């Protein structure tokens, strides 16, 4: 038995792989994911190149006090907030003017989320993983083969692990092949160039995707081992899946807004307009020095921004923590942060822009001529991980282990008849 067990476990892995390769499910799934991943990469790469051409137009000339970021090549996989981050932030005497925001007048873009790689993994591959897992135990029981397997000298743990591994491999290997193929096609395009360190981020991103997929596979196994019929398994799984992927993250942000009071964007915009026009009028009325007014106005604007950022950061933290109940949200946070298009990176960019603005205004006040250009370095992957990324990944892994362990507990008690 001690010697036979590993061999049997290997046989189970092989059996699962072969069974999957020959199944209708496998073909549908591979066809669907390849189609979606290729189409997603293609349209997002096109979108990226369009934004890159725009960037060439708005790129500041030396000496312009303008902060513009080039589009992030990884936004092809995880668009996140890249569009907001690559706007043109122009420093003016009374603060930061944002231009080049809306790149299209087509309102349909606003109706549906961008079909990037992360979206496809989040929605489609999680569903696919569930479909691989949902009938693993219950189907074999219904078919009567579970008894036969267990009549061999092999532990239930080995059966479960072998099944899980076999299914994971049939899922992960084609997924990786298709993705790498898509990326290879993308790499042939001269308009698409990865930056230094992007390869590592890409590898990390794929790792996060695999962890996410594994989690849904484990969930499928767990539910499959706790219900008797595969049909009812599927119904529960689909509802849990819809709740995790769609309902929880979208509701979490709304709930956080009920708790943290953040001034509306429009009210802030109007307040600035009011302050600015008021000061212009007053300065004409009492002929006071404009410089002093600009100084005080800047301080007032800075206070508004600071107050807003503080409240907004609290909202982001709370909504993040609420949303993390759903692994889909954790996945999106981790993936976008690693790609450099996440909400943490966006917040840091804004901080840097405010700092740059202060420096430019200081230079202007002192009459310094040689103005430094704005430069922004994305946080290195290590920092991203330290600042929450690792937490999200760890959370995915822990959930995975918990689900697998629960699945094991359920299988041990499972009545195989």
């Amino acid at each position, binding site marked *: 038995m001690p010697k036979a067990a590993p061999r049997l476990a290997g046989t189970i892995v092989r059996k699962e792989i072969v069974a999957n390769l020959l199944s209708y499910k496998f073909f549908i799934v591979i066809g*669907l994911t390849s189609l979606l991943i290729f189409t997603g990469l293609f*349209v997002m790469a096109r979108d990226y190149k369009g934004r890159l*051409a725009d960037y060439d*137009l708005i790129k500041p000339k030396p000496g312009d006090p303008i902060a513009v970021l080039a589009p992030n090549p990884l936004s092809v996989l995880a668009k996140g907030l890249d569009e*907001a981050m690559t706007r043109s932030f122009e420093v003016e005497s009374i603060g930061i003017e944002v231009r080049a925001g809306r790149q299209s007048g*087509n309102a349909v873009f606003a109706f549906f989320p961008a079909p990037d790689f992360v979206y496809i993994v989040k929605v489609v591959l999680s569903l696919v993983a569930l479909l691989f897992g949902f009938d693993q135990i219950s189907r074999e029981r219904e078919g009567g083969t579970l008894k036969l397997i267990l009549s061999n000298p092999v532990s239930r743990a080995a059966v479960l692990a072998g099944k899980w591994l076999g299914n994971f491999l049939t899922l992960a290997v084609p997924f990786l092949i298709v993705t790498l193929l898509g990326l290879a096609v993308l790499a042939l395009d001269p308009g698409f160039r990865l930056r230094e360190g992007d390869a590592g981020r890409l590898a990390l991103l794929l790792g996060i995707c695999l962890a996410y997929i594994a989690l849904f596979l484990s969930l499928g196994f767990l539910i499959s081992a706790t219900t008797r019929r595969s049909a009812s398994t599927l*119904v529960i799984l689909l509802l849990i899946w819809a709740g995790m992927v769609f309902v929880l993250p979208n509701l979490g942000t709304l709930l956080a807004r009920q708790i943290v009071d953040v001034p509306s964007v429009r009210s802030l915009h109007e307040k600035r307009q009011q302050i600015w026009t*008021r000061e212009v009028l007053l300065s*004409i009325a009492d002929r006071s020095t404009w410089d002093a007014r600009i100084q005080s106005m800047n301080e007032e604007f800075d206070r508004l921004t600071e107050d807003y950022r503080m409240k907004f950061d609290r909202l982001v933290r709370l909504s993040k923590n609420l949303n993390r109940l759903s692994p889909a949200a954790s996945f999106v946070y981790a993936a976008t942060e690693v790609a450099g298009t996440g909400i943490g990176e966006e917040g840091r960019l804004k901080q840097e822009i405010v700092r740059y603005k202060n420096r430019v205004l200081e230079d202007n006040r002192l009459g310094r001529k040689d103005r430094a250009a704005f430069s922004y370095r994305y946080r290195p992957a290590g920092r991203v991980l330290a600042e929450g990324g690792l937490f999200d990944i760890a959370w995915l892994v822990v959930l995975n282990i918990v689900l697998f362990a629960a699945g094991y507990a359920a299988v041990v008690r499972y009545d195989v008849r």
Partner: protein
Amino acid sequence: MFRAVIAKELRNHLLSFRFLAVFVLLVVIVPVTVLVLANDHVRDLDDYARRRAEIQNYLNRYAHFNRIGNIIAPTQPPVPFQALIRGLSAETDLNSFDDDPLPVMFPLLDLTFIAAVLLSLAALVFTYDAVSGEKEDGTLKLMLSNGVSRSIILLGKVAGGAAALLIPYLVSLAVGMVLLLFNPRVGWSGADWGALGIILLGSVVYIGVFCGLGVFISSRHHSSSASILTCLFVWVLLALVIPNLSPYLASVLRPTPSRIQIGREITRLTDVERDDLGRKLSQERRTAVLAKYPILAGAERLSVAEIKARIEKDADFAKAYAVFRDESAAGWKEANAIQGGKARILREELGRKEAAQTRLSISLSMISPLADLTYLFADLSNTGMRNQAHFRTLAEAWDRTYGEYESGKIEALRRGNPTMDVWNTPVDVGDMPRFQYQEETLTSRIRGVLTPLTVLLIMAVGIFAAAFISFVRTDPR
């Protein structure tokens, strides 16, 4: 017989586990969403009232015509339907530094989302085994051995599934609406309730489409585990991929020039090029005037003070110089008109191309019933593209009214005190026309959603026909 079939289907569903699961899910999620959204809407109302008060406060003390336009620009007030449907109302203002990017990461949950995603999924879960499951159980043979036609069975299956799904949907929505009614701040008008009626009608057709799809797929498969796979495959494509891809595909098929590029081009036309042309045209005109009035010889080289002195002394020179000045100005005006015309053409061209791309995106996305339902919900609730256009029309009309008011007021001020700096003096604008947002009437909202509703109906009929054909040819063994 039809009643017996439908009663059997309905009873089957009502006693099933999936019905219970969907029921619990909807009855929890819909009221929670309504509560949260209603609360959010009340906060929006408060925020709007506060902003209005601040503007009024400002106007009482600092209103002056130079910059008043920035202060009183019309804004969209929250519409009561936002307690249920958010549409495009999320604040993703891309031109503010202090913005709110959260909705970009996770779209807000609302009734549209629940109906479009959860109901379609539930409809497929209810019907994926309608034929293939009965085939597996062997009950299909038994049923067909009775004197009941296949079309009746099929109709019963689609209608039974749809009715079974409508129960949790309507119950959960009713609970939500009761909660909404208890909220005194959310005031729905008769038109809103009417719109909700059409929304329900759209939901029924939508559920019908997906129930029909489930039965259709089911009758093409021999095992229910294969039919659920195909169902989910089709669902992912129809609901989660086609709508999202459509604007991107449309931008490949009907590209629009980049807004930034056009903006640069317009700046060049109306700035550098305008200056060159203006200099050239006014020079030409000035040369012509100089040739006509010899008295002006050498005037171009005089300083401002010298010209002033000569104008005072010499009446003929003054007259000739006035012509000279007017012609020079006319040259600049002409340059402005020419370059402005070119810029307008560019802008209109961009607008036309963007509109064409939007139309194509909408048409492409309409292949997906989910997109049809989304447009239907958004336009009926005044949170969609139609309302954005409606708001723009209202704002433009108000701009014109306000412009008339402003020029009248300025004229009156000037009459009272000719030397006054009318632009930068605080004025009383208590009699200013106020922007009034008026929601679209129910009839025009309904007219706006006729297309998505018709498309949904055609889909429902088409899918039912397809289901009928494949069910008639099904081998029940």
